[in-house]
């Protein structure tokens, strides 16, 4: 599934490099194109929903957006720079982000199973142990609860650990530490102890890995107060989110997908950090808002091609931020299209889609012309047999059908 995919988004500069302060918005005079507002040598790239508001006011549809946002236009979306960028695979982008942060801050360290000289099961930490030493890239014995606990203790005493779960499903063993300590200790200590930890790993349905290795942990973790959750889907956002997660003072869970590690993309040479709370506009449109994240983004985009041929104009948003939801971007889209389809890999019951449906219905009820439709996996353990497994994951034809029904 290694496709050449150019990451894209509404790329606008903001004056603040603090990812949390969504109040600091861009000046109306800035255009979509200009990128480099440098602060401390880095620039924060954010997809800012306010731009779309801006365009509405000017009664321009999306010609400004189209030239910037559509992948097939070619070239880097970093339009203003002369450097060509470099091509890499998603797992390499994650590594690049991690490596840059480890160089920048000696407090950043990695711990997990086989992350050291083995380089990690998916090679995200390849060669880091050689570069930074065995202590900063630590191989742990097999006890997820305890090495997550270790990461929490290390974070409370000044380090910034990146804990790798070899598979997200294994972090179920760490639920106690993640919920009762990671999420809570900053609060229960009255703000005295902070936990700037990143917990990351591959999850989602892979290729016949069996039920235990096909978990969607974002469902289980989404209720935990005190943590943030983000899901990456392209090399570009993988690197940007990794860096943002490491720099955040809050505990962040970064969800990667087993099947997306070999995606190739050209990313900028310059340093960039993405916002942890923002969604990514993948394809602007008018008829329907399709909300998705991680691997399902690709199924949606495949369906989008079919839909476009059939005359539909779907707006596709990769929500990226699973906790909290970027209701600003999502809301603006709903207000425009009045129809929402959520496409997720989580199970029907209690997944991200279920929460998102509730949030949209609660906040944007008046703008909906039809009930929110959510396509999810069924409430079954993921079967091993390839055909059965395929049927538990939402496929592009189902997405096409759902849009057609929604737009009737």
């Amino acid at each position, binding site marked *: 599934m290694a496709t050449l995919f150019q990451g894209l988004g509404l790329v606008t500069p903001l004056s603040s490099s603090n990812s*949390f302060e969504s109040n600091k918005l861009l000046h109306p005079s800035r255009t979509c194109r200009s990128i480099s507002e440098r602060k401390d040598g880095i620039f924060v790239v954010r997809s800012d929903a306010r731009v779309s508001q801006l365009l509405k006011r000017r009664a321009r549809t999306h010609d400004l957006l189209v030239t910037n946002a559509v992948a097939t236009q070619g070239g880097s979306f970093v339009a203003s720079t002369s450097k060509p960028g470099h091509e890499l695979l998603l797992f390499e982008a994650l590594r690049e982000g991690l490596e840059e942060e480890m160089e920048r801050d000696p407090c950043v360290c990695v711990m997990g199973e086989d992350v050291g000289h083995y380089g990690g099961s998916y090679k995200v930490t390849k060669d880091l142990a050689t570069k930074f030493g065995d202590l900063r890239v630590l191989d742990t014995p097999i006890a997820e609860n305890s090495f997550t606990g270790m990461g929490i203790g290390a974070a409370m005493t000044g380090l910034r*650990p990146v804990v790798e779960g070899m598979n997200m499903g294994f972090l179920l063993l760490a639920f106690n530490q993640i919920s009762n300590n990671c999420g809570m200790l900053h609060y229960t*200590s009255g703000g005295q102890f902070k936990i700037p930890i990143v917990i990351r790993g591959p999850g989602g349905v892979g290729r016949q890995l069996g039920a235990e290795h096909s978990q969607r942990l974002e469902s289980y973790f989404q209720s935990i107060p*005190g943590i943030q959750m983000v899901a990456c889907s392209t090399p570009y956002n993988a690197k940007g989110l990794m860096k943002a997660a490491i720099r955040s003072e809050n505990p962040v869970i970064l969800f990667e997908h087993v099947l997306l590690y070999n995606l190739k993309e050209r990313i900028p040479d310059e340093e960039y950090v993405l916002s942890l709370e923002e969604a990514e506009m993948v394809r602007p449109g008018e008829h329907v808002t399709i909300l998705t994240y991680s691997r399902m983004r690709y199924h949606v985009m495949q369906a989008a091609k079919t839909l476009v041929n059939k005359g539909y104009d779907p707006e596709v948003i990769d929500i990226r931020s699973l906790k909290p939801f970027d209701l600003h971007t999502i809301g603006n889209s709903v207000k425009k299209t009045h129809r929402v389809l959520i496409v997720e890999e989580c199970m029907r019951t209690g997944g991200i889609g279920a929460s998102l449906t509730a949030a949209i219905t609660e906040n944007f009820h008046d703008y909906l012309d039809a009930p929110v439709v959510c396509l999810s996996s069924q409430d079954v353990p993921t079967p091993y047999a390839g055909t059965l497994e395929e049927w538990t994951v939402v496929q592009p034809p189902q997405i096409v059908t759902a849009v057609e029904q929604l737009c009737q």
Partner: protein
Amino acid sequence: MNLNRDGDTLMTLMGTTGIDFPGGTVDFIPEMKFIYGSDKERIPCYRVLDDNGQPIADHNFVQVSEEVAVKMYTDMVTLRSMDTIFYEAQRQGRISFYVTAIGEEAINVASAAALAMDDVVFPQYREAGVLLWRGFTLQEFANQLFSNKYDNGKGRQMPAHYGSNKHNYVTIASTIATQISHAVGAAYSLKMDKKDACAVTYFGDGGSSEGDFHAALNFAAVMEAPVIFICRNNGWAISTPISDQFRSDGVVVKGQAYGVRSIRVDGNDALAIFSAVQAARKMAVTEDRPILIEALTYRVGHHSTSDDSTKYRPANEIEWWRVARDPVARFRKWIENNGWWNDRAESELINNLRQRLLHTIQVAESVEKPPLADAFSDVYDIPPSNLREQEQWLKEIVKEQPQEYPANISV
């Protein structure tokens, strides 16, 4: 016939037989012999003062100065008084919950006395004496118990779940044994920074059954982390006696299983605890190694104010331990014999304490509770929009119907 990798023959001809496996060479024997789970002979227990506070012959302990010894004693008495008075306050309905450390004052205070302020402490919940030694005031304890606005935890944790980053004492969580893993992480951090400090964690006999205990000891040994594991083996995990908790010879033997240097100490002997912890600290910091200390003691009080332990153990057993094996009285005899304490000092201390503690309760009780905003702050570094919305919603509701909500909370 097996050959070693480089082709040498086995040394069968020389009478010794060893064979390489991952992990090293092991001798092998032809007779089938099972190692028993627990030997009849138990690991002996280090103590230096007998039940009458007299030094035992052939003792080796660290000589403690008068100043340190008197502070140790007064802190142990203070802890005892705190426990008595705050327990009563809970009984009177003034606070909702409390845990006492009665019978374990020596473990609390003597261990703290042997540590340095830079050593980061990860407690379970029966170690208020450690925080007391480090300078947490009686008023600060009371504020936390009443969860008023001066509580440095901002009223968010249950009573007796103290925490103070100023004193390097990490906020207590109700989860059992999770702090043991945290301590190893902290030790890892200290080792990376090459600090002259170690991590210290406390837990009970029950806590040693949790998965975190085992993995943490294992990790600490593998990583050669400077951490001291102090187990307060007080015989009871709520109503579960240790015979139902494990079948090993206590907790000390588990250290050996993980490759961790361990010692068993009489937990009611303040001097033995002091010496052992001091030695452990030196080894941990200078040699980058974990140490396990099993302090044998008895939980004289109930598990907490939600428990009545006479329901599952004989009252006379509790009484015997309370009187005959009292660590405070034992240490008192030792310092009195050294001429460092007397009856007058004792009565002054007790009266003074009682007055001060009652005063702290009065004061803490009258202080306002934390404001509503504190329910929403510190969940993250900056409140995200959903929390701001939820706070706004709650504020509006409270404003609309103030009679439905307590008056002593500012909105």
